[in-house]
């Protein structure tokens, strides 16, 4: 498929993807849309939600739709890095000599579900760092490339915090989005129960292969963004820093650490995909505003005062957007 064909068919393909996922996952439209955006833009996603809201089902469905290999790692406190990356084992070769052979871990897949990632020790969590950013795995001094596309989808439970290890900032920053998976409403739950009574297995069909996904990523990156819109996106990110000259007033009061430069890259890459998915060939301010929440909410570290005042990161982002819009756009 040529680039021009991909531009013309981009919206159609994404609609098919959403249609297929909707066969397995009821509701959660915003979460599904953002996961697909992250996959096309080449980012990882951290899903936060209580157990049983369909996180694993969603990932399995995604792997079917994109016809990509999928592996699941259940993170527990005794999980070791080698259990994730793989390790060199002594095996007999064809001549009967003992040799080291690398046994690939579950990370060597295209879609990796890191379930309850905050239950593993920081040492094991850090085994994902290199893979998530550089898409390589280094074991015993030898780096191995992960096959493309590579996508980590981690989950964590926001309620049970006993025996967990909160993800360090460096790891958090490697997730393009943090998505909040809400409980389904009554209608959605009705549909879910009805659907799963027939069969628990996923029924989504593959509509996009590996090559198509990579082509979609390349096409989306070409979408133009006006300088004013780019400046706006940068200002939104910088406004999260309490010590920046662009700092929003709420950041000065409640933010300890603001979003990294990676957040600006993520927001723009994702906005381009979102624009193309909407049938537009340019990024709009609204794209930036909508994506600011999933991109920034896990990158902002609040101070004690914010926690005491029960301020959430989404509250801070909302006020930042209002302030930056007024400052940059004058409305």
């Amino acid at each position, binding site marked *: 498929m040529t680039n*021009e064909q991909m531009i013309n068919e981009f919206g159609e393909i994404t609609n098919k993807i959403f249609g297929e996922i909707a066969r397995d996952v009821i509701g959660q439209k915003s979460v599904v849309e953002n996961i697909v955006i992250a996959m096309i833009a080449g980012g990882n996603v951290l899903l936060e939600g209580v157990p049983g809201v369909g996180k694993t089902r969603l990932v399995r469905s995604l792997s079917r739709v994109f016809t990509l290999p999928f592996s699941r790692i259940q993170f527990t406190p005794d999980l070791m890095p080698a259990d994730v990356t793989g390790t060199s084992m002594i095996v007999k070769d064809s001549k009967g000599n003992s040799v080291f052979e690398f046994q690939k871990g579950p990370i060597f897949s295209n879609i990796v579900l890191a379930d309850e990632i905050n239950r593993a020790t920081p040492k094991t969590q850090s085994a994902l760092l290199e893979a998530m950013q550089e898409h390589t795995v280094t074991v015993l001094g030898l780096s191995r490339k992960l096959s493309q596309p590579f996508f980590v989808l981690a989950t964590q439970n926001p309620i049970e915090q006993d025996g967990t290890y909160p993800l360090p900032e460096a790891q958090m920053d490697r997730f393009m989005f943090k998505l909040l998976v809400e409980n389904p409403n009554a209608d959605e739950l009705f549909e879910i129960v009805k659907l799963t009574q027939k069969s628990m297995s996923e029924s989504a069909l593959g509509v996009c292969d590996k090559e198509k996904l990579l082509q979609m990523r390349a096409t989306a990156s070409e*979408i*133009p*963004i006006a300088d*004013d819109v780019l400046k706006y996106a940068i200002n939104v990110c910088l406004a999260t820093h309490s010590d920046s000259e662009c700092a929003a007033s709420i950041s000065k009061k409640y933010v300890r650490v603001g979003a990294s430069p990676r957040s600006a890259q993520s927001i723009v890459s994702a906005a381009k995909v979102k624009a193309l998915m909407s*049938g*537009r060939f*340019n990024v709009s301010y609204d794209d930036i505003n909508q994506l600011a929440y999933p991109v920034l909410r896990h990158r902002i570290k609040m101070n004690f005062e914010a926690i005491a005042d029960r301020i959430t990161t989404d509250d801070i982002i909302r006020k930042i957007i209002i302030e930056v819009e007024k400052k940059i756009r004058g409305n």
Partner: protein
Amino acid sequence: MIDIRKYLNKFNSKLIAEGVLRSVLVAGTVAFTAMIITAIALLIASVNMIWISPIVGVVVWVLCTIVAYFAKYKPTMTSMAERIDLLGLEERVITMLELENNDSYIAKRQREDAIREIEKVNSSKIKIVLSKGIVICTSVLLLISVCLITVSGLYLNGTIKVPPPIIENEKNLYMDISYNASKGGVVIGKVNQSIKRGGETEQVEAIAAEGFIFIKWTDDNLSNKRSESNVIVAMDIVALFMNLEDGSISIDKDNIEDEKPENPPPAIGGQPGSGGQYENFDQVIDGTIDYKDVLEEFYQKYKKDIEEGRYVSEEARRIIELYFGAIE
């Protein structure tokens, strides 16, 4: 290459009108401020040329409007694109402008998409937007400047007079006004009056005695009847009379008749001192001499002169005949 500007032209006239209006309003604030400053300066300098103020205002207004329009409010292609995008075009127009010289396939598609959306938009959807703050500010300044110029003009013209300041603790002060007569006449009416500051006195009248004529008051007032208005200081005024004995002053008889009080002093020949109704005539003129005594003395002197055959001037003889009747 497509000329994308032609697609924006339909929004041009409204945005130009908006730019002009904004410039007029902003320039108005400067102009009205200039008018106020000029009016105050003229008022302080007491220069009765208040017409300078509106002229300054108009000149500043015109100049500032031109400067503001070309420096800030003239719509540019970018500002026009931003305004059109606000109509729900999702930054299509501003991106199209940036990609104007880009020939890539995606730029072409973007352009086509943007033009399609622009064509759907009715130019009437663009509303002229003016800042409430600047409208209120300009209106208030206009009102202040008009009022100030009007009042200043009337004041400098003399139409409005500023009353002397009344010191609070002097508001209830009473001023003593005293009217006295010198030798040769009396003052009738209330000669000692206590008047509230700024008030008016009752009228008094200076009446000359026989052989005298009223000349003036010590404050050079020539009218024998007088009253004071807007009294702000205490006064002690004396009526001056001229003795007619030396004959150097002619006496207008009619005037005397006219100035005669309703109840003239009794003529000698009647019963001097019996005129009880002429209370004022009995008063002490200079503190030592009683008017009754003066008349008596005058009467006795001329009676003696005539009896002893001394010379009596024609003038004196006439007055004697007139006031005292035939002596011989």
